[in-house]
């Protein structure tokens, strides 16, 4: 049998891998049957109603301080530690209110917190299952006891939400979990939605929120853009936004309607379906290795006979 050259081996392996990859990708692209569960819990943030009082930020920290390992965040201009003045989501903040101001007429507040995606990339990327999505409520939550600190979730998140506590000896990932262990348990509502004085944050089931958002848009078409941010982005998210200024200006990026997690998971799950791909790969490698070993033995046999003390 003709010996397998390195070139030929690589060619065969490459085409095998290509086949294995392309097939699921086409499957993934073809399978556009995105299932959105509108019964999951979510929040609707209406930027046109928000008055920037930051009651949500205070309440979030008040409720989740101990449970979420949060601390006040000093500002650079504040050596005395008078305020909790975070400039962004961080290892101490699950939510933050920011201001977009173009001029005196075009401005808006915006609240950032976890979007609780229908198909969360962080959950998909987490190698140890520290991030999970609750099947019933749709809450994406974090379990510090499982986390290994790899921060893949940070890289995977299309909204740049999970934050790592870089300054702590025992760091955790910090992100909103809809007050799952605190206010939601106690009052059945998230702390931020509970305290919002102008109902800019509404908590409820996704379908109710969508209906509410549409009603608001219908009642005041001049006030809102004609889209609900989060309805379709990355396969739909449970934290929805209404605004009067373009979402991109509020730092809410224009994202495709396909969930990256679905795409990568389809590839991954197809390759590993029934553990066939690894078995096939290792069988092939095993076969090649065995064959080479036999050939080597045949090739070397005469020499071994001729020099018994060669190794001594």
């Amino acid at each position, binding site marked *: 049998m003709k010996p397998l050259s390195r070139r030929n081996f690589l060619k065969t392996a490459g085409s095998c891998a290509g086949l294995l990859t392309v097939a699921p990708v086409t499957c993934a692209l073809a399978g556009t049957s995105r299932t959105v569960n509108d019964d999951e819990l979510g929040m609707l943030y209406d930027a046109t109603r928000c008055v920037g009082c930051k009651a949500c930020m205070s309440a979030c920290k008040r409720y989740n301080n101990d449970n979420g390992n949060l601390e006040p965040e000093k*500002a650079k201009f504040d050596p005395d*530690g*008078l*305020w909790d003045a975070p400039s962004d989501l961080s290892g101490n903040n699950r939510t933050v209110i*920011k201001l*977009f101001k173009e001029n005196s007429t075009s401005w808006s507040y915006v609240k950032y917190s976890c979007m609780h995606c229908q198909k969360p990339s962080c959950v998909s990327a987490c190698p140890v299952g520290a991030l999970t999505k609750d099947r019933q409520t749709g809450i994406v939550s974090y379990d510090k006891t499982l986390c290994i600190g790899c921060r893949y979730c940070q890289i995977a998140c299309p909204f740049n939400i999970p934050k790592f506590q870089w300054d702590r000896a025992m760091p955790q990932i910090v992100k909103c979990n809809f007050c799952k262990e605190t206010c939601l348990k106690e009052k059945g509502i998230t702390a931020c939605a509970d305290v919002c004085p102008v109902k800019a944050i509404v908590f409820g089931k996704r379908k109710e929120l969508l209906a509410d958002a549409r009603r608001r848009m219908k009642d005041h078409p001049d006030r809102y853009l004609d889209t609900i941010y989060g309805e379709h982005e990355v396969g739909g998210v449970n934290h929805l936004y209404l605004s009067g200024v373009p979402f991109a*200006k509020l730092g809410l990026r224009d994202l495709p309607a396909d969930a990256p997690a679905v795409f990568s998971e389809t590839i991954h799950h197809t390759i590993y379906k029934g553990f066939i791909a690894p078995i096939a790969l290792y069988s092939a490698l095993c076969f090649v290795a065995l064959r080479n070993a036999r050939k080597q033995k045949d090739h070397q046999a005469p020499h071994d006979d001729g020099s018994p003390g*060669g190794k001594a």
Partner: protein
Amino acid sequence: MDTTTIGVRSELSRRDFMKGCLAVTAFMGLPHTLFSKVLETAESDRRLPVIWLHFQECTGCSESLLRSSHPTIASLILDKISLDYHETLMAGSGFQAEKSMHDSITANKGKYVLVVEGAIPTAENGIFCMVGGRTATESLAAAAKDALAIISIGTCASYGGIQAVSPNPTGAVGVGALVKDKPIVNIPGCPPNPYSFLSTVLYYLTFNKLPELDNLGRPKFAYGRRIHEHCERRPHFDAGRFARAYGDEGHAQGYCLYQLGCKGPVTFANCPVQRFNDVGAWPVSIGHPCIGCTEPDVLFKTAIAEKVQIHEPTPFDGYPPVDTGKKGKGASPLTTAVVGLAAGVALGAGAMLAKKLPDSTSSSQDKKNP
């Protein structure tokens, strides 16, 4: 005792009376529906016998109660209690006064309320404060024995006050340190708001029990929140606008007094809500920082100008701008150079090492074909 000498009763109109009762109801944190009950109590003839003892103090607590510009409060109090012994107010003196106290204690055994004003000296057998030939500790023990409850009015009676500040030559202590077997309500303050006292009395008369107390023995309805939470200067704090010196521009503008040492953020009291003298004034409103007079660990223990630590910081009144896809600074040229150099060295070293490695096939062949 003739109430006209205090000059209050004749001036109290029905309207003022109702207003006072309504204020007290709201003040105790009771729902509006209980107003009628409180009113009923206030109107009833039931009067609470009170023995009022003075020890090491300035009588400021009594004075603030009596010298309010409007009559409502003092007359309400004096109508609701039967003040059987009060050294400042009683007409009698000497043996007559002592007898009045003794009679009241005997007659109202277990039914009277003992109000204590001032700290009690304990050093050298308490000889630093003696009334009627008895030391303060003896008077207190005698009066407390048959009391229904004790109300410590003012910071001195509650926690020792200025007398108890180091070096505390008289060994002054509050009532709570000496009397252990009676319910004690502390109404600290220097002076405390008279409404806090009145509400406590009316609460007892209405519900026949003492109001809920915090861990320092203060009624929660009056001492449940920090000064800072209801301060009218709070927006200036949130926005970072401070008075930095007495009489400076910020002080004139009514800015926050935190930098002048205001103890509002650590002091639990109702001053910003139920103000003083019935004219809506309180220290912070006239430009002086809170000195924390209701807090045993703050008053006279920290300097007036000393800034306090904020334990539960709240957001600053300002907003970070929305970050619309801007990227970070990136690596500096120096970092790039250093990293590049290191990478180059590593590559070169690796290449040299690879070169020096013995050729495995040739060496094995050498061995096999010597």
